[in-house]
């Protein structure tokens, strides 16, 4: 099994609890996005979206802090070019 990362985290991090929370929070708001595309005035869905959006942002912040950047905008150049350090999502 290859290991060509320098982040100090293992490939297991990609399926660990921090990553799973981000995956779940991200999925909920994405599925809601599709529902809201066809039901844009559903007030319950809109409040649910607001709640889940902040959950996603927290989960992403935890992921970025513990594992690495999710989007380019998460990269802090003071840390060096971390974008390429964490495993790419298809790496086992």
């Amino acid at each position, binding site marked *: 099994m290859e290991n060509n990362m320098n982040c100090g985290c293992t490939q297991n991090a990609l399926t660990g609890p921090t990553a799973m929370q981000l995956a779940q929070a991200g999925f909920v708001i*994405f*599925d809601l996005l*599709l529902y809201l*595309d*066809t039901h844009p005035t559903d007030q319950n869905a809109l409040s649910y979206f607001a709640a889940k959006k902040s959950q996603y942002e927290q989960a992403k912040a935890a992921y970025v802090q513990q594992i690495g950047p999710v989007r380019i905008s998460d990269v802090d150049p003071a840390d060096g070019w971390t974008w390429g350090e964490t495993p790419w999502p*298809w790496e086992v």
Partner: protein
Amino acid sequence: MWSYEKRLQYPVRITNPNPKIAQVILSQYGGPDGELGASLRYLSQRYTMPNRKVAGLLTDIGTEELAHLEMVSAIVHQLTRNLTPEEILAQGFQNYYVDHTAGVYPASAAGVPFTAAYIQSKGDPITDLSEDLGAEQKARTTYDNILRLVDDPDVRDPIAFLREREIVHYQRFGEGLRMITEELDAKNFYAFNPAFDKQAR
């Protein structure tokens, strides 16, 4: 434009390579009812969709299909790691291997390269959404077929997720079709093409 999130929509972590199954699953990458066709179809249709909400739906589902494309190729890649020539021959993977080694290439399980002939972007909202409903069911059936052939739970898990998403997309496109027809003449949906004609002919 697109921005990339360095994560899969749903995790893929496969420990046991299996190139025979990889070749089957490849059809959801570059095959007739696969994710490449799906994303290209929806992203192409959105420009002439006069209903802006449905154009948004096509953009968002098209984007999700790109994420699914990534999952399918991750599955294929993880199933074709560390192969020996003996395993390649024993698993019947040699025909793909000779042309692509262990590279991920958009083709069907039968080796037919991806073509835009698999999709249509007809510039007519009723037609385009009807095509999309059919596409989602074809993809769902393909995933059903894959699930019948696969025992490995590491493979079944992401495939089952992808299958569920096709069913949800079918639901959303059905709502989109209803939204389109509600804007048309209830006595004749086909009086004109709202994506092209300025008014009823």
